[in-house]
């Protein structure tokens, strides 16, 4: 995702949107979100607290995408470490809010896929909450099939689009 665009959108929303009283800054996601590098280490359960900088230095916290099987909303075992480390960070830093952006692949209707994306976002929200992240810091937005990371019509591509992105905003 393009960092500058997100920041720009956040800024514009803050200037223009009604009811946006507080200044919030979207936190840039790490540059490399590739799933091949995810969850190679599991430091989230290590003793010791995170610092804010951990968000971009810790190898677990740098992973911000959770992928789903076809028509599924269950969080696969390989992502449990990611859930745990993000929950820990969120609990430790109440001034960070997290938007869970739910996405679906292109197949089927767009409105149904909005529902499917929300269901996946809710699944991640529940998992984070169960792992200790306060619900007040979590929010789900579904983009359905509107924000594909890949536009080929095959399973390899679809599997990259069935995802929830964890997006941090600092208040």
């Amino acid at each position, binding site marked *: *995702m*393009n960092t500058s*665009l*997100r920041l720009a*959108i956040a800024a514009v*929303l803050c200037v223009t*949107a009604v009811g946006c009283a507080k200044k919030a800054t979207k936190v840039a996601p790490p540059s490399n979100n590739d799933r091949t590098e995810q969850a190679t280490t599991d430091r989230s359960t290590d003793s010791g607290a995170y610092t804010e900088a951990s968000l971009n230095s810790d190898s677990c916290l740098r992973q911000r995408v959770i992928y789903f099987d076809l*028509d599924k909303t269950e969080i696969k075992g390989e992502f449990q470490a990611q859930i745990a480390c993000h929950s820990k960070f969120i609990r430790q830093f109440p001034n960070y809010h997290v938007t869970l952006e739910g996405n679906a692949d*292109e*197949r*089927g*209707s*767009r*409105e*149904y896929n*909005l*529902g*499917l994306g*929300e*269901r996946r976002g*809710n699944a991640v929200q529940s998992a984070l909450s169960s792992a200790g992240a306060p619900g007040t810091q979590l929010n*789900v*937005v*579904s*983009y359905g099939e*509107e*924000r*594909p*990371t890949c*536009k*080929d*019509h095959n*399973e390899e591509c679809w599997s990259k689009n069935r995802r929830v992105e964890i997006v941090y905003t600092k208040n």
Partner: protein
Amino acid sequence: MPANFVTRFASLLLCLLGTAAWAQGQGQGQGLSSDVPTIVINTGTAAALPITVVPFAFEAAGAPSETDVSDVVRMDLARSGKFKALDKKDVVEFPSRGSDIKFPTWNLLKQAYIVVGRMTDADGGAMRVEFELYDVAKQERLLGLAITGQRSDLRGVGHQVADLIYEKITGVRGAFWTRIAYVTAAGVSPNINYALMVADSDGYNPQVLVRSREPLLSPSWSPDGKKLAYVSFERGDSAIYIQEIATGSRQVVSNKKGINGAPAFSPDGTKLALTLSYLGNPDIFIMDLGSRETKRITNHFSIDTEAQWMPDGQNLVFTSDRSGKPQLYQVSVNGGDATRLTFQGEYNAKASISYDGKQFAMAQGTGNVYRIAVLDRSKGSGTMSAISPGSVDESPSFAPNGSMLLYAATDGPRGVLYAVSADGRVRQRLVLADGDVREPSWGPFRQR
């Protein structure tokens, strides 16, 4: 099946159109260029009626208009699937009045019908288009009418002529003089420019209604054709807007937490069916547009969405995955139990209902192939037939006379729109823009 004959009308379609959608201000170098639709007729049909539309004589002062009204008429009739229009280059004689028609010529060419006409000056710089429709075998005049329109709206005049001819011969009101709405997406993620567009039913005269850097979807026409309801993410999450087409003025009608989706105007225009998930998961609601109060119609832990009104205004058809995968269900506007409508196909979603409430088009998925299917309930419990080839087809929308549908498909990474006859036999691609085109919605009949 006859060998596929592919007719390219591109050479006839060189007139440039008014609105260059992204010309102003976007600066992205990825605009929706020329905006000239190319219509490709994929499949012929033996049952189509042969008709000749003779080029209309230009008898007005000044230079001939850029729009040849007879071209508009010819292409409308051809793309309906009901007619086989004689190619313009095969027209051998050029009568402009019924009295000039030499019927043996057209009999020899095996034409069932012939249309002749002429364009003359009318008051205030307008043009008067007089036309006559004849039955070739009987040498009998079936229609002789005149339509007056502005020079800037001669395509509109042509569509009205085509509607009258279509109705005279088929007995069904023509729907060529209608408009369509759709969404375009130009650019590469994350710098995508979305636009909600309105165009003539053949894709000409595109106008930008809304531009957004965030997704737009689900345009839905008000029954009077003056407003569109749609979903926009420009506030960050989904919200439903209603916008007046003529003035561009708009209002947010729903921006609750979670999904605000799938708006659909009631047949009388006073209510909006919509999908809201603020109570936990997507359910169907009905909003009274006067009071803005919403009433919950479905209450189920599944995803319920994409409500469409039955023509009687008393029932909704919607998509639900309460049985596992999405299927179509019907529910009373007063709530209560929903009845399942579709049993064939693993996945059935996004209904479009014909004006008589007997045909239900949907996106039907089996394995990885998604096609448009039509459930015909005019006889018994209904028969289901696929009318598109797949494999990523979605979003069907019936023309107001039920004779054709629009739907969204893909060409490589790109979204494109097709128009298809309701029996699936004639299909044309509307090339509307350089970027992605999706979410077609066929507007209502227009009032003359």
